[in-house]
């Protein structure tokens, strides 16, 4: 077999797969068509999941500190896993206003990000709806932002999470002298007299990003795979 035949053989065997599973799907998904959504009143009848917060720069901090190693951001359909059954992963089972908001992740959920952090492992829980989950949990007498700051600073500082395996990120915070009034963001950890622990810019971006994770917006009919509930199902 000559070198030319060999390279042609390789190009054919590799190139077919390369085109079929890499290049063509990539190009096709680059031009994902806008999805008509008659119920969307504020976005000209097009499905557009809005995200608020520092999504782009928070995603960079999320990536650079390897959150994706232990946390996923995907709620799989039931054929691929039981993620949807958990009461607060795909949305909320009992949202005070909307009822059961749980749904699987769709292709429009990563608006504003350049790389979907699907994640490698689930040492920690899925974060697709972290913002929604935290706001619900802290709704009565808490502050989701402060909860996240404290969690990022020292995950085991929370007595309910004494055996958390989430790594602490003290480098996203700084200790400083209190000048005048203490900062509104200061953490409930002892930093010594006259001192306080406050988040630096990276931590603020990351927390803003994490709270923007609310992937349970109502979807148009074309994306709605929720089985229709009969009255007899209760």
């Amino acid at each position, binding site marked *: *077999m000559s*070198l030319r035949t*060999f*390279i042609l*053989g*390789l190009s054919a*065997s*590799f190139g*077919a*797969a*390369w085109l*079929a*599973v*890499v*290049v063509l*799907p*990539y*190009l*096709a*998904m*680059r031009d994902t068509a806008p999805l008509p959504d008659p119920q969307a009143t504020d976005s000209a009848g097009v499905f557009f999941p809005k995200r608020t917060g520092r999504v782009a720069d928070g*995603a960079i901090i999320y*990536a*650079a*500190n*390897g959150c*994706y*190693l232990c946390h*996923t951001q*995907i709620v*799989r*359909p039931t*054929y*691929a*896993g*039981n*993620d949807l059954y*958990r009461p607060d992963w795909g949305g909320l089972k009992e949202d005070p206003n909307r009822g059961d908001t749980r749904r699987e*992740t769709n*292709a429009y959920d*990563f608006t504003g*990000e*350049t*790389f*979907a*952090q*699907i*994640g*490698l*492992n*689930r*040492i*920690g829980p899925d974060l697709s709806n972290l913002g929604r989950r935290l706001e619900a949990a802290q709704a009565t007498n808490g502050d989701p932002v402060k909860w996240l700051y404290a969690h990022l600073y020292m995950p*085991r500082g929370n007595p309910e999470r004494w055996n958390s*395996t*989430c*790594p*602490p990120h*003290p*480098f996203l915070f700084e200790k400083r002298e209190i000048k005048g009034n203490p900062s509104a963001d200061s953490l409930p950890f002892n930093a010594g007299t006259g001192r306080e622990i406050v988040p630096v810019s990276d931590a603020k971006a990351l927390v803003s990003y994490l709270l923007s994770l609310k992937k349970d917006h109502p979807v148009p009919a074309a994306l709605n795979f929720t089985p229709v509930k009969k009255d007899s199902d209760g």
Partner: protein
Amino acid sequence: MSSITHTSPDQDALLRAGIDRSLRHPVMFFLTSGAAWLAVSILLGVIASAKVHSPGFLASCPLLAYGRVFPAHVNALIYGWGMQAAFAMILWLMARLSRKECTMVGAILTAGHVWNLGVGLGVAGILLGHGTGIPWMEFPSFAWPVLLVSYFAIIIGAFIQFRVRPEGHAYISQWYLLAAMIWFPWIYITANTLLHCVPGHPLMGAGINAWFRSAMLFLFFTPVALGAAYYLAPKVTGRPVFSYSLAKFGFWSLAVIAPWAGMQKLVGAPIPYFLPYVGAAATALLFVPAIAAAFNTLRTMLSCPDTLAASPALRFTTAGITGLLVLAVCAVLLNLPGSSLRLTQFSLSGYGFEILALYGFFTLVMFGAAYFIVPRVTLREWLSRRLIKIHFLFSVYGIITVALVALFGGLQQGMGQEDWQQPWAGAAARAYPYAVAMTFAWCLILFSNCFFFIHLALMWLRLGRRSSHPTLLVRSHGASVHGEEGDIDNAGTGHAAAH
């Protein structure tokens, strides 16, 4: 190999000695700096692994945060050790099999330094918090063009050697190596340009990344290791490859199946539905080329049980090929959509599978090849059979632990995750003992490789034994096939025929 040549044994030996001499510094440079990166990577791996179960360990240092140490560990393993070991293999095997001396030593060594600089800056970038967050591609985006250009500079000579080789025949090793040399830039350029230069859908980006990781394993590291195994098995035993048609079948089935694999990691993600299923099918089908190559090389090696017992090169290669078999079984068992894939998709078995491929198969075969090649290029014999035995035993114990974690840890963890009626902490608790086992495995591997690195560095410094007797794992009784014990430098060229 010598059956096809028309030169006398002496001329043949002179040619081989010339090739070995011309490649002494490139081969030793890539092996030694690769081994140094391996040590760095394993050390980072021990730290990262310990943090999975003990998050307080070294927590005060931002450089050593888990989310930075782990990617640094994986990238150092792939680009620092894996790629450089592969360079050493490709350069030496291609020169020997094409029967051409290396004439580009200066360019190769320069490019090798640039490669190491790129890897060093990339790892530093990750540790300083500038990682891209794209698995296996975490180096800051300045690094990939540097690595790509130095790759071409390192490898182009081997390609030209193959093109101008005197004989028309190509060995199966050359097929594998040549294919790896062509596949790597294709895969690497595709993944990096699509993810860094042509912004697309973020989810498809994740799909490309999953494909990239699988393709690096099965279209670069696998063919390089198989190329080395297909060289060592017949060379050391002195028997022909068991079946040449089986070898061809194994090669082309790998070439046809492996490019489709990888995207099963995205099953359930909103990408085109066929992609994860094609990926799962292809990954399971990789069993076929793996069995073909493993059966063929193992049959060849087992034809000479005495040599197999005595030769460090063959012992490591056998262990590596056994690793390939385990890997093939794992590829089937862990990737069945609807049953095991939902359990293992986001579990320890992803990492375990990768380490099994990178260390349990690729690295062990590279060690085997290094034990064969280094004495030839340095004209010194390995210092101690005991060091080799320690290296072998602890590597194998370590990788067996990794394999167990990959198989059982991943499934256990997945069962905890799927049990949605229980709180999430249950899944974490199930993974805990396996995370501890992973740290234990890395400690064993670290211990074993300290010995390898010291041994290798001494060999490059030409402090090896000056002897015409190779270092074998069993002490031979009676007359040695290598004749009287003597000083290799005074043995003359005729004795080089023993190599």
